[in-house]
């Protein structure tokens, strides 16, 4: 019906948008949101690929990706909370502990 190519192109666009989001946003939460977008784009590509080459296990893999993304988002947000408590800011420019 719909050529898989279209889905691929969409996924690519979303992925690149995710990268742009990561670099454009100056706060930690925004960057985390960019990462989520990238993950979803990857999921989309996965499923498109599965449809194109008849790979039924793709759904299981997508399930795993979603689960891992959930876990990562939970822990990441907890860390952001901690950083906020410590430094009272979530602007990434202000967080330079890794310098040197």
């Amino acid at each position, binding site marked *: 019906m719909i050529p898989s190519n279209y889905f691929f192109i969409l996924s690519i666009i979303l992925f690149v948008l995710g990268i742009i989001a990561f670099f454009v946003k100056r706060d930690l939460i925004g960057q985390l949101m960019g990462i989520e977008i990238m993950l979803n784009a990857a999921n989309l590509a996965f499923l498109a690929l599965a449809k194109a080459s008849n790979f039924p296990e793709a759904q299981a893999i997508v399930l795993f990706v979603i689960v891992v993304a959930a876990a990562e988002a939970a822990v990441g947000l907890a860390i952001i909370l901690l950083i906020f408590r410590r430094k009272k800011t979530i602007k990434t420019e202000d*967080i*330079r502990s890794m310098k040197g």
Partner: protein
Amino acid sequence: MKDIFWLIPFGPAISALVLVLFGHRLSRKVVSIQACAAVFFSFAVSVVSCLGLINANRADFPLIKHLFSWISAGSLKAGFSLQFDPLSAVMVLVVTGVGFLIHVYSIGYMSRDKGYARYFACLNLFTFAMLLLVLASNMILMFVGWEGVGLCSYLLIGFWFEKPAAAAAGKKAFIVNRIGDAGFILGVLFIVLVVGNSEFMAINEAIGNGGLARGTATGIAILLFIGAAGKSAQIPLYVWLPDAMEGPTPVSALIHAATMVTAGVYMVARMNLLYAFSGTAGQIVAVVGAVTAVYAATMALTQNDIKRVLAYSTISQLGYMFLGCGVGAYAAGIFHLYTHAFFKSLLFLAAGSVIHSLSGEQDMRKMGGLKKYLPRTYPAFLIGAIAIAGVPFLSGFYSKDAILTQAFAQGHYVLWALGLGAAVLTAFYMFRLIFLTFYGEERLDPEAKRHLHESPRIMTLPLAILAFFSITAGYVGLPAVLGEKADVFKRFLNPVIRPVSGGHLASGTEWLLILLSTTAALLGIVLAYALYLKNKRIPHAFVARFPGLYKLLYNKYYVDEIYDAVVVNPLVRCSEGIYGGFDLKVIDGSLDGSASAAALAGKILAYFQTGLLKDYALVFLLGVVIFMGVLLF
């Protein structure tokens, strides 16, 4: 019997090794017994081998024992092989015999020293090196021994290294020796180049069948003599010997009287065919020897330190030996080496005994009248002095006379006259020493006088033995006047040392020469008596009359100062310049530079570590992009 000669060096070698490794853990008694036993072992083997030699077939000489092949680099081959013939026999007997007596003496002299084991280790090592030197059958192995004795000389001169003067003296000896060794090495290399290898037999063969041109031979002989001049303290490389008196007195006796300094003479005698073949080189050796003999004797006239007098005396006597070898009387030169070993080491050991009894006093101006306090040292000293002065019936006379007669017979009248003059001076300064030390009024330091005592038996017994030999050793080489057969020594050395043609004097001339030598000796003694015993004011008047001359002699002709200014200081300044300019700036600079370059690189890279998450992510992204690009294309 004679085939066991190769064992001779190994007794002291093993003992030295043991002492170096474990010496500090062994008791003094064990160290003493071991060290002396090792040398005695060598002495015993030497005696046995020598006896075997006497009864052996002359045509077999020299006997060679090849132990193992040591260097084999292309065409340069040198084996660790030892040879034994009459010349080696004489040398090993002298080295081990006198060496043994000195080891025993040292037990007493060094009994209270902290570095007892170290001393005996060095002494044994020295004995090993010296034996290697005289027993080697090729020049390269001889050079190993040559260097070895130089090293041990440094170690022993600077034995009390906490004293700056001693350390400096050791350094000076080694460096001056080294300068001579440069010439020696060049000579050896030329020999290897021309002859093919450095075995003595091969060299002699090459000379015999014309393989060596006369000019080359002269060049080589001169180069080798430069080495000998360094080792045996001839002009211009003698300056280390007086300073070497900073070492313990037994060291001076062994190394700087009997053995190491005679290595040069041995070398010339060993290469006698070479020196005879190249007439010019022989001339040079003789002239240097004669001039040194007189020159050193003049410096001995004014010295106040008892050991310095003996040091200059040694230089002078070595000059005699070279004079003998230079005019072709190699046997006479070796004969003088042999007798000199006895009376010079006797003199040094006796001087050591005097110093020991005076608790370390060496200045003769603080001695006097010791005759009655040192009843065993004094006679020994006296015998040694008489022997060196060349008074008839003692050993020194025979050997000195042999040299002077040969010089005259070969027509070198000037050299003969120089030798005679040196004989007068020798007698004079030796008896000046005797009269100042043992006779006259006592000028002793009161502290020293309280502790004044004769030395222990263990020190005076070697003195007695050496005194005995100083008297009797000369009888193996009676002058030709008394018959051709009388010179046993010369005939013994015949296979090794070809007698030089010509030089036969009428017996009348010979007796005249003997008379002249005797007169020279007695003249010297009488003069010394007159100046130092009878009328003490004469020396002072003399000095007052010729202050310049006295200063010149007293300061050793300012040679040390000249060397310092002309050679040493420019070199030191040059080294400092190079050190500052090159070593510090270039070498250290490049090392520090590479370190700072690494630090700089680190600083530049640290610029990228901003700590910002985004920058790191950017780099990630770049990596991914590049990676994908590479994969795609």
